[in-house]
């Protein structure tokens, strides 16, 4: 029975590069897929593209491709990635230039786009926003981007047309991994159970090292060998979608049923209904079996018909966030941090700084679980006050950090290491649109 091997090259935009190179060289792969496009990242990329029409793709595209492309070419591994972000066509130009610089010829590089529905955003004014339940037109901030999550069909088309490298804009994360399975095994677009299995494969691979002992270690309880050279996962799948997950022999990390279980449930809600553009997958009966060292068999995924809609991520100018921090140490440090907190709160009131929300944490005491009232288990040797506020203007945001910084000469004894920052915040709202409103477009170029 025919089998293919797919590696995970990256789990987020800024992920490590070395594990993917190790996979290409030693993983006996057919495909390597780099998932690099978080929900908000494309809105920020869209703004970069507006400033410079040749930009708007992943900032690490050149860094990654300079190393990965020659290796992938040498080992006959195809590359699939969403590093195209807001500008897959410009990303293709970058990869063409890298290929020429490295003396690589006779390869095809494809762009997959069609996800950008910003030009027709006015049609969706009445659509309900998932985050708020209110119509899109009630959104206060200026909309800067709107991208639909496409399924695997554009990538499959690119592979059919002989692409060695496929660079997409917004597609669902699992689609990057389902596409080679659909293409290689000729799965039908309504073969829901196989697409459900492909979705679980994609879900396990899409976060890189999170399936191989990354984000897992808890010393003495869950130990991970050589985490500093953590390897990334690969799967070997057959035409039925039955698969095992493993990593390159000799790499750091660990693949166990426990690492797989943590990743299976990561970022899902109802396990029986995981909605993607390609299929409604059912994870609820998935099980794992350890069949060897760092080898885990995946069983039990199924699927149901896909929905008639696509999810669209809308980026909008939301607010500003101003922040300031300052540390206190030694005897009574928590009390001095609490006094500093009260001073900042009062000063912001005296100056009538307008904020939509103000939050004041003491890092080391209550910043994670908001349990300021709980008795401290022991007296810490340091405490760091952190003040953050959401504001409508940059000026008000700047006042937050300023009133923390002035604690140097106007606050409790011994404050140190003050910082102050202001960020403009692009937030994301999600709506559903008819499936036919966004269709994948494929452009293939040869070098």
């Amino acid at each position, binding site marked *: 029975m025919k089998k293919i091997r797919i590696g995970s090259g990256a789990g987020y935009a800024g992920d490590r590069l070395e594990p993917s190179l190790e996979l290409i060289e030693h993983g006996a792969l057919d495909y390597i897929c780099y998932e690099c496009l978080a929900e908000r990242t494309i809105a920020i990329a869209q703004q970069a593209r507006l400033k410079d029409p040749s930009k708007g793709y992943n900032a690490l595209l050149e860094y990654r491709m300079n190393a990965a492309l020659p290796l992938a070419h040498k080992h006959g591994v195809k590359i699939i990635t969403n590093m195209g972000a807001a500008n897959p066509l410009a990303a293709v130009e970058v990869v063409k230039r890298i290929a020429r610089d490295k003396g690589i010829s006779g390869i095809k590089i494809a762009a997959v786009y069609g996800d950008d529905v910003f030009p027709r955003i006015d049609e969706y004014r009445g659509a309900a926003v998932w*985050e708020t339940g209110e119509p899109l037109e009630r959104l206060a901030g200026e909309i800067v981007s709107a991208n639909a999550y496409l399924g695997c069909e554009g990538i499959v088309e690119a592979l059919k047309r002989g692409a060695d490298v496929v660079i997409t804009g917004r597609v669902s994360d699992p689609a990057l991994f389902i596409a080679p399975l659909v293409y290689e095994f000729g799965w039908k677009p309504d073969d829901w159970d196989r697409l459900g299995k492909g979705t679980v494969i994609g879900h396990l691979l899409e976060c890189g090292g999170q399936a191989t002992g990354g984000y897992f270690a808890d010393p003495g309880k869950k130990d991970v060998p050589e985490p500093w050279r953590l390897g990334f996962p690969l799967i070997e799948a057959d035409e039925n979608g039955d698969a095992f997950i493993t990593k390159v022999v000799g790499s750091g990390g660990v693949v166990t049923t426990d690492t797989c279980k943590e990743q299976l*449930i990561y970022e899902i809600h109802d396990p029986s209904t995981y909605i993607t553009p390609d299929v409604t997958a059912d*994870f609820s009966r*998935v*099980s794992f079996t350890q069949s060897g060292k760092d080898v885990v068999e995946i069983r039990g995924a199924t699927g149901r018909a896909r929905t008639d809609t696509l999810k669209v991520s809308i980026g909008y100018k939301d607010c500003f*966030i101003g922040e300031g921090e300052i540390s206190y140490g030694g005897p009574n440090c928590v009390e001095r941090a609490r006094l500093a907190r009260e001073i900042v709160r009062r000063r912001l009131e005296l100056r009538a700084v307008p904020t939509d929300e103000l939050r004041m944490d003491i890092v080391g005491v209550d910043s994670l*679980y908001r349990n300021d009232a709980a008795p401290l288990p022991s007296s810490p040797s340091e405490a760091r006050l952190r003040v953050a506020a959401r504001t409508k203007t940059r000026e008000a945001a700047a006042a937050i950090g300023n009133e923390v910084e002035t604690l140097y000469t106007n606050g409790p004894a011994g404050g140190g290491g003050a910082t102050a920052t202001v960020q403009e915040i692009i937030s994301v709202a999600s709506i559903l649109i008819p499936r036919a409103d966004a269709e994948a477009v494929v452009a293939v170029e040869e070098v």
Partner: protein
Amino acid sequence: MRLWELAHSRTGDKGNISNVSLIAYDEADYERIRRAVTAERVREHFKDVVKGEVTRYELPAVGALNFVMQGALGGGVTRSLATDKHGKCLSSYLLEMEL
């Protein structure tokens, strides 16, 4: 006994919703954990953080529960004022719960 002795956990985020898994190391402990760790108890445990409902989903085939907590992330990762905007550290707090 803290849950940390018997189970492990990972947090995920979608908008203002946090999901926290609870996975028995030994699947033989799953039923005991399932009986003890109800959605209501988890809601109470996270009362300082979670503003909305908590729904529990069961995954017996992997000996795990999944708690989906609404209104848990200070408005969502982009606009939250928290240091831990994703709520990644919530999983460790669940493991503090006494069984």
